[in-house]
């Protein structure tokens, strides 16, 4: 039971109001710094005493990182825009519906009111061995508790494992990949990443989920107009009807010409330590009509190379079926 003794361990709190100041403060703090956005990933770590930074940099006061900016080539969304704002924004809803739908599927209303788009895609994995403070590979140790013989790994990965078998928990990440979004990172140099390159697997760096290194700040997400008003599909399968992370989710965008798929982008999440873009499936469906045989072929192709752990072989079937359904959504 929570009481006053459940105080978060002490830290220095700094509250910059510009991106420049934030980046400077992050540089000063180095490895001992922690960026606080919505806080819904952060405070669990702090309260459980697993992460204990010396300096917390609260970026909630940076106005330029909030809200939406219409641009000719698309829409720029500040990383500190809340998920509720993303889900309710008129242009996002009408032109980039897959992102609004994905944001609507995150956790609970209170969390969407506080959680940010940047935080949702940058959050750490929810592997409970790791979250409970076990010294696994991702935490700097030399063992993976989730793939040990008696491990409970029903929610873990079927693709992309490399010592670590955790999955990316974000709902909006696959939607942003389907929309070919760009991530704007400031450090103080400004860099642009394609959405699918923003996420990294354990074979690249096992301690990080994204390209962000200490001192890097995700400031904006740019959604190009190219995929606006496409045929979108989003589905998230979870154990409960609300308030849960995905087991598997799929986000897809199809540009149609009559009943023919002219172009497509499809991404799944919950199957690997990073959201997976299915470019082979995209190539398969391009120029085809979404017949039943194409749906089946897309599903079978999607699961090539998957390998189940002891308790998660259902995810392979689930991934196959979700990709099938995504293609079926544009069937004549």
């Amino acid at each position, binding site marked *: 039971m*929570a009481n*006053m003794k459940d*105080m*978060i*361990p002490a830290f220095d*709190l700094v509250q910059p109001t510009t991106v420049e100041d934030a980046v400077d403060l992050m540089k000063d703090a180095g490895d001992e710094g922690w960026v606080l956005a919505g806080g819904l990933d952060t*405070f669990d770590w702090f309260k459980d005493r697993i992460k204990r930074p010396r300096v917390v940099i609260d970026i909630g006061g940076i106005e330029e990182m909030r809200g939406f900016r219409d641009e000719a080539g698309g829409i720029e969304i500040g990383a500190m825009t809340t998920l509720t704002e993303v889900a309710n924004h008129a242009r996002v809803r009408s032109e980039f519906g897959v992102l609004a739908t994905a944001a609507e599927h995150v956790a609970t209303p*209170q969390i969407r*009111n506080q959680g940010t788009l940047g935080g949702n895609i940058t959050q750490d994995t929810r592997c409970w061995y790791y979250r409970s403070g076990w010294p696994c590979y991702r935490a700097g140790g030399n063992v993976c508790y989730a793939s040990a013989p008696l491990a409970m790994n029903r929610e873990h990965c079927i693709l992309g494992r490399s010592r670590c078998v955790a999955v990316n928990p974000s709902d909006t990440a696959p939607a942003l990949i389907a929309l070919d979004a760009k991530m704007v990172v400031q450090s103080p140099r400004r860099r642009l990443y394609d959405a699918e390159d923003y996420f990294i697997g354990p074979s690249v760096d096992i301690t990080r989920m994204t390209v962000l290194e200490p001192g890097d700040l995700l400031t904006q997400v740019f959604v190009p107009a190219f995929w606006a008003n496409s045929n979108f599909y989003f589905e998230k399968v979870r154990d409960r009807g609300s308030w849960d992370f995905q087991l598997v989710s799929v986000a897809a965008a199809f540009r149609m010409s009559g009943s023919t798929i002219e172009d497509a982008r499809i991404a799944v999440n919950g199957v690997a330590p990073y959201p997976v873009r299915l470019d082979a499936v995209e190539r398969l469906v391009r120029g085809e009509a979404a017949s039943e045989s194409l749906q089946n072929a897309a599903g079978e192709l999607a699961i090539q190379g998957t390998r189940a752990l002891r308790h998660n072989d259902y995810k392979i079937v689930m991934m196959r079926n979700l990709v099938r359904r995504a293609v079926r959504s544009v069937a004549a």
Partner: protein
Amino acid sequence: MHDVESVGVLEKKYSRRTFIKGVIATGATVSSANYLFRGPNILGAATLQSTTERLLTLTVNGQERRVDVLPNETLAMTLRYKLNLTGTKLGCDRAECGACTVLVDGVNQYSCSILTHQLRGRSVTTIEGLENADTGELSVVQQAVMDEGGFQCAFCAPGFVMSMTAMVANNPNVTREEARVALSGNLCRCADYDKILNCAMRAAELARSV
């Protein structure tokens, strides 16, 4: 004599500057440090800023409240332990149960998972602020809960009432299905969800007739 000797010992260990800073820090935290920290290291220079309360002016239930707040203090703690607004409950303290739900600028949020220092210049409403301050008249949601008797043990009730308040303010024409979604961030261990939804629908009805 004894006092003078003590000061002498201190002067050997600390520079004058560190000593003064230390005194300021202990002075500032004396009200809460004893029960906030299991192993307090108040004099350590590294934790100097982090254990110092700073005076904030918060707008709570329409009133300006001045309160000393630690950097690592959540809004729920400030409300319950410093402002004595204990209507806001702490259940899980992990943004999972919703018992601590309050309104920040009219939007329902978990007060266990936001730092009080993040709320400078924003307006907080707790369960205590719902009734009319002058007449004592209940809000539509409170009245609906009274009418329908929605809760069994009611530990979760303040959180639910705050979420319902945000819900009917957003959309008084809410359907039962929409209410289910709007209240999905609050848990009830007595599993009184059906009766709670009756309250929500009654609250929406009252809000429409106001």
